[in-house]
């Protein structure tokens, strides 16, 4: 006899089967190739690329916009530039640079690309009132020679046109129509690249393949750029098939994923160095001897052991991925006797008489900052510095590190990484150590300014390389406004069936030739 209990049990079994059946199906619709990228960086609400300098949104914009050139930044080839929207470029004279533009390119809204778009974009981006103006070497006058030729003139603004050489790969080219209409510019990103922006749903930004892309329609139909702030969630989503790329893995996750057969991992050197910045505009670190003493107290080898795979030793103010890198002779090494000698010379034998120093670091943003912060604190205390470590969560740390409007900054030292989207060294050197900006250190040293200006004004890249390696970096190593601890590597995880993705050393990922097989 069938009882009510039998019926209830049967219904329960049926319900469970239905639920399980629903899960079994594939994530993607019929044949459509969708790639979900789990990102650690959110986008801001303003789609105008000149309105921000955040890395997360910058990497997203790389899917949508092209620049004049492209810097592939492969290992050991920091100075290579490839054509993107420009087919060729040359320096005509010290203050003029010419770009010949690619024909037959359309923006995602259908407008034809031409010289007027380059003029509108560069003059707009270089306007000092724009938040992202610091990416540009200065204001510029752009001359339209013909529909597919532009000339950049920098004579009026006092810097050589060669300063635009590497920056030509950074500035996203906007439509002149959008630049003239700011409300449209902010509403949606409209570029020329392989993927076009469709919509935003909560934390997911949806991109579709651009059928008219000049490099050929991408094989991937849809890219979903999802903001997933928790590193564990990014990886778990990768493991259960819901994310196809997870960026910014922690070193431990990279190690444990290497054995996993469903996931491909990769590590790469980035354009980022981690710096110990000194506040150079207030005591005691306004005295270069005390800064040097602090540097000689730090054994970078121990920090490297702590960081493991996530760090590469480097003795320069920029990463090996950037133009001008060279391990500098005379870069401060671990030398406790020298530290003591300098402290005594500066009037603080054994650190006696120094005020308590606050060392600000972050947690949850870069790997192991708290751990090596504690290590550095201990090493400094060993030499007599009285150091207090302040560990802040990323939003609070971001406020604490920058100098305020009155020129002063919190604490005496801070730990900051600096990742820039180009081989151009000035994107690191000038914002940090040129007295007009010195966003964190507040350094105001005429000798450093002089060598920074000298390398920027070099007539050609060969001369510039010489000045950087023989004058600029050695001068900085003597004055140490900041101490570069190591160059950072990042780790990505991807679905095993993803082929052809190109990972750039500043976080952006090029999917124009990628495929999910």
């Amino acid at each position, binding site marked *: 006899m069938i009882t009510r209990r039998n019926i209830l049990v049967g219904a329960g079994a049926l319900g469970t089967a239905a639920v399980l059946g629903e*899960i079994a199906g594939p994530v993607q619709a019929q044949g459509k190739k969708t790639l979900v990228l789990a990102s650690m960086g959110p986008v*801001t609400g303003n789609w105008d690329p000149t309105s921000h300098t955040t890395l997360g949104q910058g990497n997203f914009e790389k899917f949508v916009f092209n620049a004049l050139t492209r810097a592939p930044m492969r290992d050991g080839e920091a100075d290579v530039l490839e054509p993107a929207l420009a087919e060729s470029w040359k320096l005509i004279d010290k203050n003029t640079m010419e770009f010949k533009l690619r024909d037959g390119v359309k923006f995602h809204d259908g407008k034809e690309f031409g010289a007027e778009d380059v003029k509108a974009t560069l003059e707009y981006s270089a306007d000092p009132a724009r938040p992202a*103006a610091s990416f540009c070497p200065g204001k510029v006058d752009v001359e339209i020679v013909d529909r597919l030729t532009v000339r950049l003139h920098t004579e009026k603004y006092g810097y050589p046109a060669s300063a635009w050489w590497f920056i030509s790969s950074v500035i996203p080219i906007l439509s002149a129509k959008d630049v003239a209409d700011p*409300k449209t510019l902010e509403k949606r990103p409209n570029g020329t690249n392989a993927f076009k922006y469709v919509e935003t749903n909560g934390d997911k930004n949806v991109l579709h393949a651009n059928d008219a892309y000049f490099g050929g329609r991408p094989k991937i139909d849809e890219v979903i750029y999802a903001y997933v702030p928790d590193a564990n969630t990014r990886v778990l989503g990768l493991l259960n098939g819901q994310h196809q790329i997870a960026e910014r893995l922690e070193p431990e996750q990279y190690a444990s994923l290497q054995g996993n057969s469903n996931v491909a991992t990769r590590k790469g050197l980035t354009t980022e160095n981690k710096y110990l910045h000194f506040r150079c505009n207030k005591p005691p670190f306004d005295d270069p001897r005390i800064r040097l003493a602090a540097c000689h107290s730090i054994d970078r080898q121990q920090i490297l052991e702590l960081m493991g795979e996530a760090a590469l030793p480097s003795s320069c103010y920029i990463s090996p991925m950037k133009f001008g890198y060279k391990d500098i002779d005379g870069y401060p090494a671990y030398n406790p006797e020298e530290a003591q000698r300098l402290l005594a010379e500066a009037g603080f034998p054994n650190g006696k008489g120094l005020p308590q120093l606050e060392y600000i670091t972050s947690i949850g943003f870069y790997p192991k900052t708290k751990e090596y912060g504690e290590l550095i604190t201990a090493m400094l205390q060993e030499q007599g510095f009285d150091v207090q470590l302040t560990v802040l969560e990323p939003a609070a740390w971001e406020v604490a590190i920058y100098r305020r409007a009155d020129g002063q900054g919190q604490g005496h030292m801070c730990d900051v990484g600096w990742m820039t989207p180009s081989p151009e060294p000035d994107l690191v050197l000038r914002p940090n150590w040129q007295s007009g900006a010195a966003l964190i250190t507040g350094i105001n040293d005429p000798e450093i300014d002089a060598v920074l200006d000298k390398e920027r004004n070099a007539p050609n890249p060969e001369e510039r390389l010489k000045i950087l390696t023989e004058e600029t970096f050695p001068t900085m190593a003597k004055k140490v406004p900041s101490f570069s601890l190591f160059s950072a590597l990042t780790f990505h995880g991807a679905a095993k069936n993803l082929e052809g993705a190109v990972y750039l050393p500043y976080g952006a990922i090029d999917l124009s030739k990628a495929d999910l097989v």
Partner: protein
Amino acid sequence: MLFAIDFFVRRLAQGVVILVGVALLIFTLLRVVPGDPVRLMLGPMVSPSVAEETAKELGLRDPIIVQFGRYMSQVLRGDFGRSFVRSAQGGSTGGSRGESTFDASNRAPVIELIATTVPYSLLLAGLAFLISLIIAVPIGVWAGLNAGKWPDRAALYLSSILVSLPNVWLGLVFIFLLSVKTGWLPAIGYQGWTYAILPALVLAVELVPVIIRSLSVSVSANLLEPYVSVGQIRGLTRSRMIAAHVLRNSTIPLLNVLGIQAVGLLLGGLFVVEYLFNYPGMGLLMINAVFQRDFPIIQAIAIFSCAALVGVNILVDFASTTIDRRLQY
């Protein structure tokens, strides 16, 4: 009838005072605690002067009382402002004038963002409630009916274990075991109601001990009341006594528990669980807003959560008075 009107008017007035107090507290804390939304919006390479300009445009440099007054007058008109960071959802919406670094017109209205996420949170909370009741009610009643014997103790041990499990760890273990390793349930994000099962399970684990405890205590206390033995003497069977009378009396404390503790636990647990599972509900919206110092969203969700809790309290107290008239005041 008169009692009901009197009750609601009194309690709603108290509720408004609480809401304004909470709003002022959150508002002030956000602006006093370290973390600058402008810096997070604009990024590292921005000059301090441009950052200051943007902050002034957002009204963040006015005295806090002035900002609060401005905010409350907007709220009273139903306008919870626009997000500092998130753009309008879906395709582009209508824009307006302005070349400034911050033009609010393109940012999503807070109400819209919350309205999109609340249904997901309600689904999650509802499912968590359901699962916890299904598990906890039978165990709690059984433990109460056998007070002092081994079912009671077993329920106590079970509750202790469940209460001690940290929800962060449990969530990650569930994802790893039940989704990644075995593929039984989906885990991250939302693509159908089944994605809410795992997070609801984690939330239920927090609720179950509370319900078991409350039920077993009140059932066992009620069994000791005189009316139980009197009723049995008068001829009612024990099971009818329990089903029709004891259980009904036992639910009063349970109602209070559900209203106050459970909703409070759910609200708190929602943030962590949604963050772990990347579940697109109100909790994830709040956590991301805190990371990005998106003040308007943080303020609005704080006000809504407070209002929800106050409202549930009022309803629960009123419901108690209908079950037991002696509780009217």
